C-alpha cells in the first residue's frame, strides 16, 4: 500500500473531527472520497498532510511504509505527498509564476514540462498574478493543479476539484488529474496515486477511479467499487448512506 490510514482519530481545536478512520490507497490507484459537508473529508486530507491544528489522538498514517505522525508538513511533501486545496489562501506579493519556479528549484527544475502544463491548464494569464488573489473558483482549482503538476507527487490529495467550477474547467481539471496519474519519466516504476475528495461526485463520472469511500460524521461509512458507489450517491444522495449505515450498526 502507498497510503495506509489506520484507526485514525484527530482533534481540531479540542473537537474530535475524525473518529477511527481506516482508508488505503494503493500504488497507481485513484480513490474517491465522498461525503456530505462536514463529514471529515477535508480534515482527513489535512491530517495526512500534517496541519499543525490537527492533533492525532489515536491511530496512524503510513506512507510508503513509513509512519508520518511525527513529521512536519514539508517533510511529508518531500516524501512525495502533495495537496490541491479546496480553498487555497491568497498569497499577496508572490506571483504564481514565482511560486512555480521556486518549486522547480527544489525539484531540480522541470521547466519545459511546467510550460506545457501552464498551456494545458490555460494558466498563461494567471502566472503573472499574485497567487489566488482575485482568482475565480475555476482559476483557483487550475492553479492548484498546476502547482501539483510542478511538484509531481507520488500521492496527490485533491480536495473538491469540481466544486464551484464551470464545465470547461472540469474538463481541464480532469486532464490535469489524469496527467498527475501518469508514470513519471524519471521513474516509470513509480506509479502515482490520488485521493480525490468530492462532495458532488461530478469528477467521479469523468475519472476512472478504482475505489470510493463514503465518510459520515468523521468515520468511513462505506467503501467499494468506485462506479457503483458514485452512481449510488448521485442517484440517491447521502441520506441513503446514512440509513444504510444505521442498519449496519
Amino acid at each position, binding site marked *: 500500500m502507498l497510503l495506509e490510514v489506520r484507526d485514525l482519530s484527530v482533534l481540531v481545536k479540542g473537537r474530535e473531527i475524525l473518529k477511527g478512520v481506516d482508508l488505503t490507497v494503493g500504488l497507481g490507484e485513484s480513490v474517491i472520497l465522498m461525503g456530505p459537508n462536514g463529514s471529515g473529508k477535508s480534515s482527513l486530507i489535512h491530517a495526512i498532510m500534517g496541519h499543525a491544528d490537527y492533533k492525532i489522538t489515536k491511530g496512524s498514517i503510513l506512507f510508503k511504509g513509513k509512519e508520518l505522525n511525527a513529521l512536519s508538513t514539508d517533510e511529508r*511533501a518531500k516524501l512525495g505527498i*502533495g*495537496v490541491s486545496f479546496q480553498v487555497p489562501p491568497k498569497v499577496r*506579493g508572490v506571483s504564481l509564476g514565482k511560486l512555480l519556479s521556486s518549486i522547480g528549484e527544489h525539484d531540480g527544475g522541470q521547466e519545459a514540462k511546467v510550460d506545457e502544463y501552464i498551456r494545458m491548464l490555460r494558466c498563461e494569464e494567471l502566472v503573472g498574478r*499574485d497567487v489566488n488573489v482575485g482568482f475565480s473558483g475555476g482559476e483557483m482549482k487550475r492553479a492548484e493543479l498546476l502547482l501539483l503538476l510542478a511538484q509531481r507527487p507520488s500521492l496527490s490529495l485533491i480536495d473538491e476539484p469540481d466544486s464551484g467550477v464551470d464545465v470547461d474547467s472540469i474538463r481541464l481539471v480532469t486532464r490535469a488529474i489524469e496527467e498527475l496519474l501518469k508514470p513519471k519519466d524519471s521513474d516509470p516504476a513509480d506509479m502515482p496515486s490520488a485521493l480525490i475528495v468530492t462532495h458532488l461526485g461530478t469528477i467521479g463520472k469523468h475519472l476512472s477511479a478504482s475505489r470510493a469511500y463514503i465518510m459520515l460524521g468523521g468515520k468511513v461509512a462505506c467503501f467499494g467499487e468506485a462506479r457503483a458507489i458514485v452512481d449510488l450517491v448521485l442517484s440517491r444522495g447521502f441520506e441513503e448512506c446514512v440509513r444504510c449505515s444505521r442498519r449496519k450498526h
Partner: protein
Amino acid sequence: MREVLEEEALRADWTTDLRKRAKDRLSKSSPSEMGLDLSRFRMLQPRDESASSVASLPREVREASEAVGVVGDETARSGTYFQLDATALMKKVAVKGLEIMSLEDAFDQLDLKRYYWNAVPVDKDGFTSAVELYGKGGYVIVARRGHKVELPVQACLFMKANESLQAPHNLIVAEEDSSVDIITGCTSMPEKNGLHVGVSEFYVKKGARVTFTMIHGWTHDIHVRPRTGVMVEEGGTFVSHYVNLNPLSTLQMYPAVRLNGRAARTSLSSLLVGLGKSRMDVGAEIEFNAPDTKGEIISKSVGTGDSTVYARGRLVGNVDGVRGHLECRGLIMNPKSRVYAIPELMGNAMDVELTHEASVGKLSQDQIYYLMSKGFTDEEATSILVRGFMETKIEGIPPMLDSMIRSVTDIVASRAVG
C-alpha cells in the same frame, strides 16, 4: 552646537529674514521637544576636496555607497552628486538639460529665491532651523524645461565623521514638461554615531514628472530626521519610494506633498523594516488642493527584534473632485517588536473620495501551511511570505531602478527573517 556657535556669513541678503526665523525657532527648541540634544553633535566644515568619479573613492566608502544604490558605473547615470560629511566631493552632469550642483554653488548660479524654503517652512522645527543656520551642502538638481532625462541621477549623502551633524539642504526642480528619476542613497560608516538632518524640497512644474527613490543604510547609532516638502503643479507627477536597509537609532520623517495644480498626481510608498532596536516614526501626507488630483500612500512596516515602528499617513482633501487612497500594513515578526499603523483622512470639501486600508498582524499560519504543503520548510515559507508582503508595485519607475529596488528588497527581506 559645538564649534559652530559663531555667526556665519549670510548666503544672500534675502535670506536675512529666514535666518532670523530659524534662530527664533531654534532658541525655542529644547532637547526634550526635539527628542535629541543637538549640542551632542559637531558641525563640520567643508574640506577642499573633490573626487573625479565614484570609482576613485576609497574602497570602504565606495562599497558602503554601492549598498544604497550608488553605482560606480557612471554610464548608467545621467549625473552624480556625492557628499561626504560636509564636503560635496562630486557634482557631475553627463547630459544636456540637467544641472547638478551643491547648494552653495547654486546660490551663485541660480535664482534660488523662488525655491528656497518654500516647500518646507524654515521654522518648521528645530531641525529645519538647524539646517538653515548650520547646514552644509546638499544637492540642487534642475531638469530644464522640456528635457526628459533618460538615465537616473544619483546622489549620495555619506556620513563618516564621528559625533557629527550632517545637514544638507536639497532642492529639486523639474521645470515644465521635464522628467527626471533620482536615486538617493544615504549611509554612514559602521559604529559611528551622528545626526543626519536632510531637508529636501521638490518643485514639480506643470506637466513635469519626478520619481525619487531613497535608500537608507545607516548604522546603529545614527539619528535621522529628513524633512521633505513637495509642490506639484498642474498635470505634474511625483512618485517616491523609500526603503531602509539597516538598523539605526531613531528615524523620524513626515514628507508632505501638496498637489496644487489640476490633475496633479502622486504616489508615495515606503518599506520600513524595524531591525534590532531601531525606533522609527515615519509618515507621509498628501494635500489635495486642486480638482482632479489623485494620490496614494502605500506604507509597509515590518517589526523585528525589539524595534518600534510608527507608520502614519494622512490624506487631506481640500477641494471637490479629488481621490486619494492610503494603504498602511504592518507585519510583526517578533513578540518584542511593535508596529503602530495610524491612518488619517480629512475631508474639507464635499466631493472628495479618500479611503484607507490598514492592518497589523503576524504572518498567517494558513499561508505558511499552504507553502509547506508545497514542499517549503517553515523558514522558506516565512521568507517567501515576508518578501511577498514587501512587494510594492511602484508606478512609472524606470526598469533599471525597479530591478535595483527589487534586489534591495530581497536583502531587507532576508534581514527581516533573520
